[in-house]
C-alpha cells in the first residue's frame, strides 16, 4: 500500500474539476427549478458522444466541445418544454419522469454507438506530458483542471455580478415574489435549465477525452454528481466546488488504497455530513 504522491493528488484534483463542471449544472437546476434531473448523467454521456462524433469528423476538439454544449442544451430545451411542462409543480413526478428520459436516452445511445469504448480525440497541443518540478503530468488533465477553475469563476461572476444572476438567485429564494415584480421567471427557469444541461454536455465532452465513453458511464457520473450535491447542498455553487473536491480526492484515495471499495470511500463522509447537516454543507431549507 503506497501513500499519495503528487501525481495522484493531481489526478484527484483534475477529477474534481470534471465533477464540478458536471455537478454545477445539476445543482443549478436543482436549486432554482427544484427539479432533480436524473437524466443529467445521460446528458453527460450524450455530450461526450456528440463531441466524439463532431471532433472526429471536423478534426477540431473545440468545435466538438461547442457542438456538445449546443446539442445538449437543445436536448434540455426539448426535455423541459416537451415533457416537464406537463408535470410542473409535482416534485416526485418530475424526478421519475427525468429518470424515464435518462433510461430512454441511455438505451438510444447504446443503439447508435454500441457497447464500444470511445475516446474524444484531443488536439495536438494538449497531448503528451508537461514537465514541471521533476514530474511528468499529462497536459490534457491540466487543461481540465484549468477549465474547471475557469467555469467556477465564470459561473460565480454570472450569478453574483450580472442581472440574470441576480434574478436566478432571487428565484432560488422566492420565485413568487420575482414573478409578482413582473419578471418572466419561466424564461429564466428555461435558461437555467439549458445552462445546466450545457454544463453536463461540456462535462461529457471534456470527460470523454480522459475517462472514455461507454454505456454505463452515465450512471457512474450521475452517482458522483449526486454525492457532490448531497455533500455540498442544493443550489450552492461553492457547495458544488467543495463537494467536488471532496468526492474527487476521496475517490482517488479510495482507488489507490482500496481498489475494490473505491465507491465505498465516498460513502463515509457523505454519511457523516448527512448525520449533522441533512441538507448538505451549504444547503438551505427551501
Amino acid at each position, binding site marked *: 500500500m503506497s501513500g499519495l504522491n503528487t501525481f495522484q493528488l493531481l489526478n484527484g484534483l483534475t477529477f474534481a474539476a470534471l465533477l464540478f463542471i458536471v455537478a454545477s449544472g445539476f445543482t443549478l437546476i436543482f436549486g432554482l427549478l427544484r427539479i432533480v434531473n436524473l437524466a443529467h448523467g445521460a446528458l453527460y454521456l450524450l455530450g461526450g458522444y456528440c463531441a466524439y462524433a463532431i471532433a472526429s469528423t471536423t478534426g477540431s476538439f473545440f468545435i466538438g466541445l461547442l457542438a456538445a454544449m449546443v446539442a445538449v442544451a437543445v436536448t434540455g430545451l426539448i426535455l423541459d418544454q416537451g415533457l416537464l411542462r406537463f408535470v410542473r409543480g409535482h416534485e416526485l413526478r418530475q424526478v421519475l419522469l427525468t429518470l424515464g428520459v435518462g433510461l*430512454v436516452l441511455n438505451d438510444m445511445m447504446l443503439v447508435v454507438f454500441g457497447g464500444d469504448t470511445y475516446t474524444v480525440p484531443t488536439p495536438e497541443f494538449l497531448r503528451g506530458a508537461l514537465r514541471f518540478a521533476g514530474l511528468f503530468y499529462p497536459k490534457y488533465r491540466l487543461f481540465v483542471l484549468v477549465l474547471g477553475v475557469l467555469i467556477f469563476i465564470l459561473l460565480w461572476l454570472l450569478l453574483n455580478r450580472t442581472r440574470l444572476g441576480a434574478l436566478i438567485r432571487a428565484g432560488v429564494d422566492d420565485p413568487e415574489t420575482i414573478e409578482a415584480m413582473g419578471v418572466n421567471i419561466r424564461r429564466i427557469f428555461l435558461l437555467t435549465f439549458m445552462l445546466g444541461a450545457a454544463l453536463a454536455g461540456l462535462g461529457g465532452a471534456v470527460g470523454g477525452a480522459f475517462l472514455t465513453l461507454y454505456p454505463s458511464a452515465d450512471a457512474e457520473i450521475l*452517482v458522483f454528481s449526486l454525492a457532490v450535491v448531497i455533500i455540498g447542498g442544493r443550489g450552492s455553487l461553492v457547495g458544488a466546488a467543495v463537494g467536488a473536491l471532496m468526492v474527487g480526492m476521496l475517490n482517488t484515495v479510495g482507488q489507490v488504497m482500496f481498489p475494490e471499495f473505491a465507491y465505498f470511500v465516498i460513502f463515509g463522509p457523505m454519511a457523516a455530513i448527512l448525520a449533522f447537516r*441533512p441538507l448538505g454543507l451549504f444547503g438551505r431549507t427551501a
Partner: protein
Amino acid sequence: MSEIGIPRLGLAAILFGALAFAIVPLFVPTYQVSILTEVLIYAVLAMSVDILAGYAGRTPLCLGAIFGVSTYVTVYWTSTMAGSPYVGMMLGICAATLVAMVFALLAIRTTGVYFILLTLALGMIIWGICLRWTSVTGGENGLRGNVRPVELAAHLPFYYVVFAAVVVITFAMWRFVRSPFGLTLRGIRDSDSRMRSLGYNVSLHMFIAFTVAGIFAGVAGALYAMFNDFVSPSTVALTQSVEGLLMAITGGAGTLFGSFIGALAIIGLENAVSLYTERWQTVMGVAFILIMIFAPEGILGGIRTLLARKRG
C-alpha cells in the same frame, strides 16, 4: 371506509386474483409458469417499495439493491461456501435487513426529492461494490449458484412453493400496513410536522418502516436467488430498483395489492416486447414518462378514484 377495512368489491377482487394465480399455472406451458413465478417474486419487491412510497410517502430507489444483496448472499453461500440453500436464504434476508438498517439510519432524516437522491446514491454504492469486488462477487461475470433443491427443480412444484410463500408474505404486509403502525405511517406521509407535534417519534417510525421494507425486499431477493440460480451486477443495478418502483406505481402507490397488477403488467410487457425488440430499457423509460404524465395514480388507484366518483 375503503381506507380502513376492505370493501366487499375489493375482497372479491383479491380472492379472484388469488384464485387466478392458483389455477392458471395448471393450464399453461412451463415457460409461462416460470414467468408467473417471476411475477409473484417481483410483486413482493413492488409491495416493499409500496410500503415506503405509498404508505410512508418516501420514494426509495435502493430497494432493488437490497433485494440484490440478499440474492448475492444466498447464491454465494450455496456456490462458493457450498452451504445449504435454506441457510443461504436466511443469511441473505439477514444481510438485506442489516443493509436496510444502515441505509435507514442515513435516509430517515431526509424527505421528498432528497430521499430519492440519497437512496439512489446508496443503492449505487452496492452496485459499485458488487461490480468491483471481483474476488467475492465474480465482477461482471456474476456467480452461478446451487440454490434450487432437487425436489423443486420442476417448474410447477416450485411455482406453488413460491405461491404459498407469497400468500403468507402478502398477508403479513397487509397486516403491517393496516396496523396502527401503518396508520401512523400514513399520517407521516400526509404531514410529518403534524405527527411530530402530536408526539409521534417520526424518525423511529421511518426507521422501522424502512427496515421492514428492506426485510421484505430481502425475502423477494432470496426467492429470486432460488428462481434464477444466478446473480450478476445487473441484479443490484439501478434498473432493478426502478423496475420495482415502476411496478408499484403502475399498480397504484399506496394500494399494496396493486403491486400484483403492476408486476403482471410490467413483466408481461417485458416479455411481449422482447419478442419484437431488444430495447426493453427504452420501453420502460417511455412507460415511466407516460405514467408520470397521464396516470400517476396507477391502475388500481385510478379504479379507486373512478369508483369513489361514482358513489359520491
